[in-house]
C-alpha cells in the first residue's frame, strides 16, 4: 500500500514538473520577456541589466531550476500589463473566486443530494419527472447562456438581483469577503447558481441512480419489515450507503468548479482569478497565464492524488486489484 502511495506521489510530482516546464517555456519563448518588460525608451545597458536580473544569460536547465524555486516561494514574476508582482494580484483576486466556488459547491451538494433523494423516492411522481427533464436541459445549455438567461430574468425583467460585480465587500486582513454584507450576498446568488448548476445535476443524477440501486437491496426490505419509518430508512440506511461514489465525484468536481469559474466570472464581471486569467489571455500577459497554470495544476493534481488515496482506503477491492495488476 505504501508503495502505491509513493508511486502516485512521484507521478504527481512528475506531472507538476512537466507543467512547470510548460509554464517556463511560455514565459521564456513566447515573445521576448525583455521586450515586454521595458518600455520604448531603453538603452543597451537597461537591456543588459534586465537580462542579467532575469537570468536570461544562463543555461536553460539553470534558468528552469531558478524559475521553479522562485515559483515554489510564491514569486511568479511581474505582470506585463499591470506592472505589479503576479503573486500580489493573485492574492488580491483569490478570495472572490474561492468564495464563489465554495458557495456554488455547497449549493450543488445540498440541492443535488436533496433532489437526488427526492427523485429516487418519488420515482414516478410528476414533480420528480419534471426535475429530471429540467436537469437534462440544464446539462445541454452552455454555462455562459445559463448566466445570461439568469441575468435576463432576475436582473433585467424582475430587477431583483445585481447583474455584475461583488457588491460591497469587507476587508478582514488580506481577505476581502462579500459574505458579510447584504449587497455582497445578493451579488453572490446568480453567479453561484450559474457555476454550480452543472455540478448539481451531476450529483443529483448520481445520487438518484445509487439510491435506486440501494433501495432494491435486502437490508432495506428488512428495515421496512421491522417497521421503521420511511424517513429513517431513506436517510439513515439508504442515503448513507450511496455516499462513497458521491464523495469521489464531489472531490473531482472541485477542480472543475474552479476552472469553469472563468466563464461565470466573465459573464458576471466577478473580480476573481478567472477574470484575471481571461484578461491575461486576451492581452497575452504571459507571467499571469503561467502563474495561473501552475496554481491550478497544483490544485488539480493534489485533488486527484487525495481522491485516489481516499479511494484506496474506502474500497478494499481496489487494493487487491492493484497488488495483482502490478
Amino acid at each position, binding site marked *: 500500500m505504501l508503495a502505491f502511495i509513493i508511486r502516485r506521489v512521484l507521478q504527481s510530482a512528475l*506531472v507538476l514538473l*512537466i*507543467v512547470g516546464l510548460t509554464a517556463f517555456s*511560455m514565459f521564456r519563448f*513566447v*515573445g521576448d520577456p525583455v521586450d515586454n518588460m521595458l518600455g520604448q525608451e531603453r538603452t543597451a545597458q537597461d537591456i543588459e541589466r534586465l537580462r542579467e536580473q532575469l537570468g536570461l544569460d544562463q543555461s536553460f536547465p539553470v534558468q528552469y531550476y531558478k524559475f521553479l524555486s522562485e515559483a515554489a516561494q510564491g514569486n511568479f514574476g511581474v505582470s506585463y500589463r499591470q506592472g505589479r508582482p503576479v503573486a500580489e494580484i493573485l492574492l488580491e483576486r483569490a478570495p472572490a473566486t474561492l468564495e464563489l466556488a465554495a458557495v456554488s459547491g455547497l449549493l450543488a451538494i445540498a440541492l443535488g443530494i436533496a433532489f437526488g433523494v427526492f427523485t429516487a423516492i418519488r420515482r414516478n411522481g410528476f414533480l420528480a419527472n419534471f426535475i429530471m427533464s429540467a436537469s437534462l436541459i440544464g446539462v*445541454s*445549455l*452552455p*454555462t*455562459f*447562456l445559463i448566466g*445570461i438567461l439568469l*441575468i*435576463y430574468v432576475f436582473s*433585467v425583467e424582475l430587477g431583483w438581483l445585481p*447583474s455584475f460585480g461583488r457588491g460591497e465587500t469587507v476587508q478582514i486582513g488580506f481577505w476581502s469577503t462579500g459574505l458579510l454584507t447584504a449587497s455582497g450576498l445578493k451579488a453572490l446568488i446568480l453567479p453561484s447558481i450559474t457555476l454550480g448548476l452543472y455540478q448539481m445535476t451531476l450529483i443529483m443524477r448520481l445520487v438518484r441512480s445509487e439510491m435506486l440501486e440501494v433501495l432494491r437491496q435486502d437490508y432495506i426490505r428488512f428495515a421496512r419489515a421491522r417497521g421503521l419509518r420511511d424517513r429513517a430508512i431513506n436517510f439513515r440506511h439508504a442515503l448513507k450507503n450511496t455516499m462513497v461514489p458521491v464523495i469521489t465525484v464531489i472531490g473531482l468536481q472541485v*477542480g*472543475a468548479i474552479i*476552472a*469553469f469559474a*472563468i*466563464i461565470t466570472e*466573465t459573464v458576471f464581471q466577478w473580480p476573481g482569478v478567472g477574470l484575471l*486569467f*481571461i484578461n*491575461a*489571455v*486576451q492581452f*497575452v500577459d*504571459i507571467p499571469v*497565464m503561467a502563474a495561473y*497554470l501552475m496554481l*491550478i*495544476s497544483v490544485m*488539480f*493534481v493534489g485533488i*486527484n492524488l487525495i481522491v485516489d488515496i481516499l479511494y484506496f482506503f474506502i474500497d478494499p477491492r481496489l487494493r487487491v486489484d492493484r497488488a495483482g495488476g502490478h
Partner: protein
Amino acid sequence: MTDMPIKDAPQKVVEQSRLRVFLDSDVFYMFKKSPVAVISTIIFASLVLSALFAPLIAPTNPFDPASLNLMNGFTGPMTPNAFTGESFFLGTDDQGRDVFSTILYGMRVSLFVGVAAVLLAMVIGITLGLISGYVGGWTETIIMRTADVQLTFPSILVAMLIFGVAKGITPVEYRDQMAIWVLILAIGLSDWVQFARVVRGATMVEKRKEYVEAARLIGRTPYAIMLRHILPNVLSPVLVIATISLALAIIAEATLSFLGVGAPATQPSLGTLIRIGQGFLFSGEWWILLFPAVTLLTLALSVNLLGDWLRDALNPRLR
C-alpha cells in the same frame, strides 16, 4: 477512347452496390425507425446548407460596409424601421446589420471551426492511438502518459492556454487574421485524447487477430498494416466520438469567442454574436442576443442527439 467506358463501368457497378449495401444495412434501417435521428439530421443538414450557401440566402452581406445604413440600427424583428421604413426578418443590430445575415455568416465560422478542430483532433488522435496501440513499449508509455496529464485538466482550459500562447507567438498585425486558425488549433489540440484512447484500445484488440498476422507474414510494412488493415476496422467508435466531439467543439468555440478569446469581431462566430448581443440586454434589444443563442443551441442539440443515436446504433450490445 475505347478504354474509357470499360474502365468506368465496373466502378459504377461497385458504387451502386455500395449505396445498395448502405440502404439495406441495419444502421440505415434503424435510422429510418428513429424519429429523433431523422429530425435532428434534417435540422442539422438544413443548418449546414444554409451556412454553406450563406452568400446566396442572406439578404445582405453584413461585412460589406457599403450595404449598411446606420439609420437602420436597432430595428426590431418584423417591424419596419422608424426612419427608413425598411423591415428585417430578425431585426438589426446597433450598426444596422441584418441579424439574420450575421447569423448565417456566423454559423459558417462556427461550423468551419468546429469541423476543422474535430478533424485535427481526429488526425492527431488516430495517428497517436494507432502508433501507441501497435508499437507499444516506450512510445506508448510516453503518448498515453501525456494523454493522462492532459485529461487531468478541463479541455476548455487547455484550449484557452493554447490560444493565449499561439496568440503570443503570432505577430500583432496578423493576430485578427490568424484568430480563426489559432482557434482551430487550440480546440483541436485540447480534444485529441478521446480519439487516441479509443483507437489505441481497439488497435490492441485488432493487432492480435489473424488478418494482421497474415499481412505481416506477406511482408507488408507496419505503416501499411496500421493504415490499410487496422484503421478501417477501428473506425466505427471513432465516428461516434467525432460526432459528440463536434457538438462539444461548437460549444467550446462559442464559449471561447464569447469570452473574447476566439473569433474576432471582424469575423464573428455565433459566440461572438452572443457576446455582442449581451451588451444590449439591458437596453431592451433582445433580438440581437436571442436569435444567435437559439441558433447555437439548435445546432449543438441536433449534433448531440445525432451522436447519442449513433452511439446506440453502432453498439452491438444494445441491439
